[in-house]
């Protein structure tokens, strides 16, 4: 397990759904903004 804090966030591109549309999203496109990246096990989970 590596220590990720203090390191550059690994860049990625993924398909996504936002404001009613499907599209591609790339982390590095958000450079200059604060980003919160959240992972979760699955849709419709209750927590």
């Amino acid at each position, binding site marked *: 397990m590596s220590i*990720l*804090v203090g390191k*550059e966030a690994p860049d990625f591109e993924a398909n*996504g759904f*936002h404001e009613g549309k499907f599209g591609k999203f790339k982390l590095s496109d958000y450079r200059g903004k604060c980003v*919160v*990246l*959240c*992972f979760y096990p*699955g849709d419709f989970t209750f927590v």
Partner: protein
Amino acid sequence: MDSVHSHKVWQETELSKMVDGGVPFPMLSDAGGKIGELYDVYNGAVDVRGRFIIDPKGVIQAMEVLTPPVGRNPEELIRQIKAYQHQQATGEVMPSGWQPGDPTLIPSDDLTGHVWEVWKP
């Protein structure tokens, strides 16, 4: 993990009933846990509850990882974001339990051993 089509159904059938207008941020699909692997939160079956604060320069400043049964605390997330934004704007550092408006510390060699004199929570 789920497909963007699943995200759409979840947003339209449930989330939009819990949050006015639905969640306002992009919901991404991490097929096969590939992004989760990059961030060390993929356990071979699912992405566990990992949360990362990435600053405007693209540096990870904070992370929290929970197993699936327990949800996150958005208030603590927002406190951490405000603390990092304050640090990056001023160079000051935020002691334990800091809330916006509370006293901060200015790091220096002279402060060593004297924190108790200047910071009284």
